[in-house]
């Protein structure tokens, strides 16, 4: 399955990159993301709750980043699996500074979706993925523009582990919210940024 799309974020590319570098931002902006943990350089693990149509479940995922060109582009390789199925995806994310204080972000994802979600939810997958990715970027944009009210206590006591606050914006809309592909696409972008940021 191929999914691609774009978003406009109201901040310069450098700031967008930084926001995407902040796991604390990511954990509360990725739809359905419950937990995010750095497992090494360029690698994260995460837990996402997602549903496609009636098939809902919790997915444990891994993300690895490569080909980073700060603050322009990166390749994210992500995989997740859970009761309802599996997904693995390569996402190419590009940031282009529009020069007017905003940044155009484009992503191209190639995903392999397996298990029940592939056989039953297939025809809704790409639509839900795109919608979820859109929600993620909107949430990031809200962070950048200060619209989002930062909830307290978003870091856990373990260093490098980020837990979503009790009511993330992502958790209210059960039906569309958590497409696993969308989450990973979004997550990819976020994590890439995050990892790059940490290494600088």
């Amino acid at each position, binding site marked *: 399955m191929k999914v691609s799309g774009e978003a406009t974020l109201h901040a310069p590319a450098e700031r967008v990159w930084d926001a995407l570098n902040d796991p604390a931002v990511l954990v509360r902006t990725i739809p359905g993301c419950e937990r995010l943990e750095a497992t090494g350089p360029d690698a994260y693990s995460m837990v996402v709750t997602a549903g496609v149509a009636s098939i809902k479940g919790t997915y444990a995922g891994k993300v690895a980043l490569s080909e980073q060109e700060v603050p322009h582009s990166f390749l994210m390789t992500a995989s997740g699996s859970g*009761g*309802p*199925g599996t997904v693995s995806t390569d996402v190419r994310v590009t940031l282009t500074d529009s020069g007017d204080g905003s940044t155009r972000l484009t992503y191209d994802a190639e995903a*392999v979706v*397996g298990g029940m979600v*592939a*056989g039953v939810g*297939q025809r809704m997958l790409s639509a839900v993925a795109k919608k979820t990715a859109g929600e993620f970027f909107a949430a990031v944009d809200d962070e950048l523009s200060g619209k989002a009210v930062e909830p307290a206590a978003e870091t856990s006591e373990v260093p490098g582990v980020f837990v979503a606050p009790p009511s993330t914006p992502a958790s209210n809309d059960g039906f569309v919210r958590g497409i696993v592909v969308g989450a990973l696409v979004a997550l990819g972008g976020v994590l890439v940024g995050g990892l790059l940021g940490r290494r600088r």
Partner: protein
Amino acid sequence: MTTKLFGEPIKRVEDHRLLLGHGGYLDDLGHDALAAAYVRSPHAHARILDIDVSGALEVDGLVAIYTHEDLPGALAEPLPLLIPHPTLTHGRTPYALANCEVNHVGEAVVMVVARDRYLAEDAVERILVEYETLPAVVGIEAARTAEHLVHDDVPGNIAANMVQEVGDARAVIDAAPHTLELELQIERSASTPLEGRGVLARWDTESGRMRIWTSTQTSTGVRAAVAAKLDLPLMNVDVITPDVGGGFGVKIVHPWPEEVLVPWAARLLGQPVKFTEDRREHFVASAHERAQLHHVRVGFDDDGRLLGLDVRFWHDHGAYIPYGLIVPIITSTQLLGPYKPRAYRVEFDSLYTNTVIVAPYRGAGRPQGVFVMERVMDAMARDLKMDRALVRERNFIQPSEFPYDHGLIFQDGRPLIYDSGDYPTSLQKLKKLVGWDEFGSVREAARVEGRRLGIGLACYVEGTGVGPYEGGHVIVETSGKVKVATGLTTQGQGHQTVFAQIVADELGVPIDDIEVVTGDTRRFGYAVGTFASRAAVMSGSAIALAARAARKKILKVAADALEADPEDLEIVDGFVRVAGAPASAIALGTVAVLSNPLRYSFDEASKAATQFASGDSSKPPVDQDDEPGIEGRDYFSPMQSTFASGMHAVVVETDPDTAEIKILRYCVVHDCGTLINPRIVEGQIHGGVAQGVGGALYERMAYDESGQLQNASFMDFLMPYVSEIPAAIEIDHLETPSPLNPLGIKGAGEAGVIPGAAAIAAAIEDAEGFPITAMPISPSELFELRRHNEGNRT
């Protein structure tokens, strides 16, 4: 006088029970059983790196979790290769639970047993399997290119390469006045019975007995396999087939992983265990069929006579090949239909792909073969500008040429010799039924109205009633009731009715007094199974022979009692009497009483058989070589299959704008030899035609390139509803008896589906004016073909 029942369209005796919801299917049984559920591979091809069950252990109600490591002895070995063949040089079968590698989405990896299915699935969700994915081989093209391999030790993904040749077809074609080449393709489809697979097992620890109920097409096959896998004496394993909600071929595969794992777990746990397959599992963990690509060369003369036929094809059998080469062998041989090819060469490769395995699906390789042959016939007609029916007629085997030996080996390992048939008469009947010769004006009249109509026809010959054998057992009880048993199974065909019709006539008893049991190894231990349109031919014949043996015994006992000559006796309405002297009648129940000399009576009637009431003191109570009771047991084992035939004609209308394909008329001429029950045969034809329409216009397995089946639900896998089936299926019968069995019958179960794709393709081609070379076809595909063939119409 008892009315003769054989040949009468009586109502099915099982319908009252089944239609009122009183059937007992697998999931209706075993409410006390633990439930099994499976972790199945989400990947088409992967290595299993780790299985972590720790997360599942806290699930309340969990009883056990098993992986391949837990399986003992033979259970840890691959499942059997059911039908070996000398050309099947690289046969691979799956493990009951995956051993380090998975080869298709849906392959069972872990079995969970819990208090109920909900809890079992909760546990399944919590088991983490880590995979390293491998490149997936999906589709015939990827398989034969063999850039990646399904099994590392199978070069080219080729399980088997097989050639059959009669005459030097290639040389004949090269020298022929006309030659054509065609590339013809059929996609994957599947049996999709409404009831999926299911198995329930009860282990009796005290007696060491295993009882298994399974939704199968072969209870004796399952019994033998379970006994071998679980190291149990065959005599300690009973397999019972309850009501089965459709099989269509998929349930002839055995043992399924679940059919050995569930009994094993039941024995281990000392509790009954049940598995009921859900719909998605059926799509990805049972079996499919049909996918084949054919390259054909044909040579023919100016009159449209075939001179030589050279067929090269590729069969996609999925990840494993437990059922062997049956489907491609059937295509290879049955492709010839009612025609004389004169010189014929056929070669196929059976290819591994990372998709679900193949089992013969109703028609079993014939829909593909008939599609190929009938497309060739139409192409020849187009090339010569001849009538399509005439080209066929010129190539028919004539009634005087039977038995007709094709010089090939059929799927049963026996020579392909047609026993009987009358193809020219069938064609005449079909042309008359559909109005073939008048259709030109119908088409033209529609064209004037802006409508697009087309007509097509397709012929087939179907080898039915394959061996090796079936048996029948008939017993007359002291109540006068008759109990009949045969070992093969029933999945809705109406066996209880037709077998009772046979026995009613043979024994002269009312049909209401006859009860037929199928697929229960406790009642009949020797059997093969229900497939290849064989039940009526094989078990019907065996039951007739068994009933004749019982009749002989009845007449002997009655003759003694009536002091008459057995030759003078007749049996009418359950009474034996001297022909023409009804006053002398003796009830069958009384005959049964007298046949069993007793020391102890148990009711009024049985007093007549006790030692002071009856018996000739000059003889032992049971004669040497005789047995107590009125029973008959016999077997039927023919030299070869018997060949049924038929022809379908279809009128379609295609929408000039939307390319929607609508079937206006569907006509069938059918010859399955002597009919036992025309109503049941017509029902089989109706169901078959519906499945043929599905195969032609709707059903396909939408695999993506990574081996994910994207339409694994009835939301996305289209099946024809009654609204997609022509309202009237017009049927005419021809009865050419088979000389190969005592009843003159041929199989009828699969016939209706076989020429569907071929006939519908021909009709669409006729309506559109360009070749149709791949089926099934959807409106959007037809729409694309129209764009592609713009300005190309003939």
